[in-house]
């Protein structure tokens, strides 16, 4: 089976990889002589290059990675265990090794596994612990002293879990199972023509791209100066995946709908933004970690804004660094011409994307943003063909309540559903299975539905839906959709 696509994939320089230690992930670019700090350890990825994805490495002295041999199982001795904890007293004296002893062991370069063994031997209470407690003890110590890191290939599963755990503020607290629902409810698949509007660092876009596998086309609607795709670049997609990825500024949507669209006034945007994210493949890794460390638990809108601009800055810097360095040294003239050419190209792309939207035949709409969903939905649904699904994510329920009502009033949609998912993990062990102690309190809300032909003549719905589901179209204040 060493042929075709089943070729084992190896870690190559320049790849986007994900480091994994237990349940903690971090996306990194694979570069030589680049110091990586992960879970309080530092090391270089040089030695990992050429190994197969999924390999587990041990961090050795000098920050080298060494593939771990399959020398498992420490539980060689016959087990001796207590029956309960009636004789175990927490006096802080059960471990005879001191901090300094342990540090000395570490400094001597003793492997984690051996340190754990020593800890067990020097614990006066270990033998009295129940078998279960012993397991737990070993597991805990292993986690602390064994420096094992697995390098895996990025995927939606891994990146969405990683972002939710590390930087939920950057993805509007979109929990991975909620993202999973969006991809299914949106019927995302190869060959679709999708509209994606997200402010989740490009994670949702990446997930959609993965599910489309390079077939079909995607139009990313973006606010501000340019699309943000920091998370998208973590996926390490092949270049061809970007061939049919288009972008269109939100600020041009209204004019496109009203027919006054022109390319004369492009949104003011930092130079070469579009180009930038291609270059920023090396992702904004360091930026991200440093941000993560400073980020408070509840990320505010303001913080988000900062994140975003910082991301863009990084892109610019990257672009400058990689693209322009040589250029700059050349004549200014050429630079200007280059600029003009790029601007012309950008305008051409924008026109092409506008034409794609104008066909009004998109196969679906995915929205996951920090903006109020109502104006986005009301505008963007115009570009979607009838009998196609749409899904809107919002971190809060209330805006979706309003969005629901507005969509009812507008018509042209059926099967509207407001929902959230509830996710619980379990510890499964013989005779000791139970739900895990903590769980996420909420992963955000979804409003989904299906478009139908909207006959503009009748503004209200007659026999069916209205009767069953809905209250009379209310005499409500119409001020509310100004909230974006």
């Amino acid at each position, binding site marked *: *089976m060493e042929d075709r696509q*089943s070729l*084992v994939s190896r870690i190559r320089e320049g790849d986007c990889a994900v480091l994994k230690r237990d349940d903690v992930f971090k996306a990194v670019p694979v570069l030589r002589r680049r110091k990586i700090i992960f879970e309080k350890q530092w090391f270089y990825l040089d030695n990992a290059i050429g190994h197969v994805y*999924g390999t587990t490495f041990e961090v050795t002295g000098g920050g080298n990675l060494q593939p771990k041999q*399959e020398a498992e199982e420490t539980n060689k001795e016959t087990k001796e265990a207590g029956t309960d904890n009636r004789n175990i007293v927490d006096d802080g004296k059960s471990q005879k090794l001191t901090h300094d002893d342990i540090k000395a062991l570490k400094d001597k370069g003793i492997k984690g596994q051996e340190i754990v063994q020593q800890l067990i031997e020097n614990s006066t209470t270990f033998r009295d612990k129940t078998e279960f407690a012993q397991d737990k003890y070993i597991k805990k110590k292993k986690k602390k002293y064994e420096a094992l890191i697995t390098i895996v290939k990025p995927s*939606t*599963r891994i990146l969405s879990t990683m972002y939710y755990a590390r930087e939920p503020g950057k993805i509007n607290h979109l929990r*991975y*199972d909620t*993202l999973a*629902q969006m*991809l*299914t*409810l949106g*019927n995302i*698949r*190869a*060959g679709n023509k999708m509209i994606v509007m997200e402010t989740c660092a490009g994670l949702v876009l990446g997930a959609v791209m993965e*599910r*489309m*596998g390079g*077939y079909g086309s995607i139009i990313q609607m973006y606010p501000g100066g340019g699309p943000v795709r920091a998370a998208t670049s973590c996926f390490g997609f092949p270049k061809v995946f970007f061939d049919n990825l288009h972008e269109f500024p939100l600020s041009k949507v209204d004019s496109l709908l009203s027919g006054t669209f022109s390319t004369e006034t492009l949104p003011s945007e930092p130079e070469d933004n579009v180009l930038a994210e291609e270059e920023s493949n090396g992702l904004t890794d360091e930026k991200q970690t440093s941000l993560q460390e400073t980020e408070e638990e509840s990320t505010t809108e303001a913080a988000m804004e900062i994140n975003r601009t910082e991301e863009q800055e990084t892109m610019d810097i990257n672009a400058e660094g990689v693209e322009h360095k040589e250029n700059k040294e050349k004549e200014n003239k050429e630079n200007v011409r280059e600029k003009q050419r790029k601007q012309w190209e950008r305008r051409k792309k924008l026109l092409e994307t506008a034409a794609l939207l104008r066909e009004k035949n998109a*196969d679906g709409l995915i929205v996951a943003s920090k903006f109020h969903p109502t104006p986005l939905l009301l505008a963007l649904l115009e570009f979607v*063909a*009838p*009998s*196609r*699904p749409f899904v809107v994510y919002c971190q809060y329920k*209330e*805006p979706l*309540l*309003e*969005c629901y*009502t507005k969509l009812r009033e507008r018509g042209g949609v*059926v099967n509207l*559903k407001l*929902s959230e*998912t*509830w996710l*619980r*993990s*379990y510890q*499964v*062990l*013989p005779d000791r299975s139970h739900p895990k102690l903590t769980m996420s309190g909420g992963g955000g*809300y979804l409003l989904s539905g*299906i*478009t*139908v*032909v909207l*006959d503009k003549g009748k503004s209200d719905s*007659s*026999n*069916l*839906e209205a*009767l*069953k589901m809905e*209250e009379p179209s209310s005499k*409500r204040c119409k001020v*509310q959709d100004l909230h974006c």
Partner: protein
Amino acid sequence: MSFAEYGDTIKDGDTAIVFLGHESMFPVKVQHGTVTQTKYGVIRHSTDLIGKKYGSKVTCSKGGWVFILHPTPELWTMNLPHRTQILYSTDISIITMMLELKPGSIVCESGTGSGSLSHAVIRTVAPTGHLYTVEFHQQRAEKAREEFREHGVEHLVTVTNQDVCRNGFGVSNIADAVFLDIPSPWEAIGHAKSALKAEGGRICSFSPCIEQVQRTCLAMEEYGFTEINTLEILLRVYNVRTISLQIPDLGKAAEDNSSTGFDSSNLSNQGSPCSNLQQGAVQFKSGVPLREMVGHTGYLTFATKSLF
């Protein structure tokens, strides 16, 4: 029409969804000359359906109307004829993501059951992937094959009628992912492992009972699977309602119906919940949970087969 590709117009031989109203819909096989009865009257396929755009409003003989929707795996899940218990879209979503399915993935599944998950998997792995699905019940296997043919996805799926616990999936070393929904999944873990690619892949087992999960987890460990993780996912649906709550009369001798201030400052500037003060009542929008919801479908156990 195909479950793996959109089409614009309704054609003879399509499976379409007749949407009657909230949550009320059913599938029809579109055929020249056929009629379908609905509570709003008759739909004549030749004149009312064929050639029309998907998403169109169709007026039935009694004057009521319905929408005709393009089938999707999700609509199919809501409407398919049950031959077994089925997996619903909430579980299917997390399964698809956690198994890392995408175009080109090779997937093994057992049992096929009513084909609810199968349709969703086929949609996701198309156009270059494949689903090998194993069902030990002969009629069910037959029926599934027939449905896949009618739904235009037969080239993406192979249905085998055998017992996965005894005979495995009939393929080895080719799968990126394996899914098990059988009474004793622990008996099939070995077969699952050999179906997966040598370089590894993902597995998921769905079981309603924790005892099944326990045995399955032990078997997975025994066969060297890692990252074993069991979870449960539930869907909470909210009905959007306008609620009106009365303001209690506390007997104050107020000058100007007092609570206006409370109303406008507190509610209307939050954006969505609508609030109207009328005669001592406050109106607002609320997402009301269902009185009863599905509280358990099954435990999902995921694991990774790694290279070593």
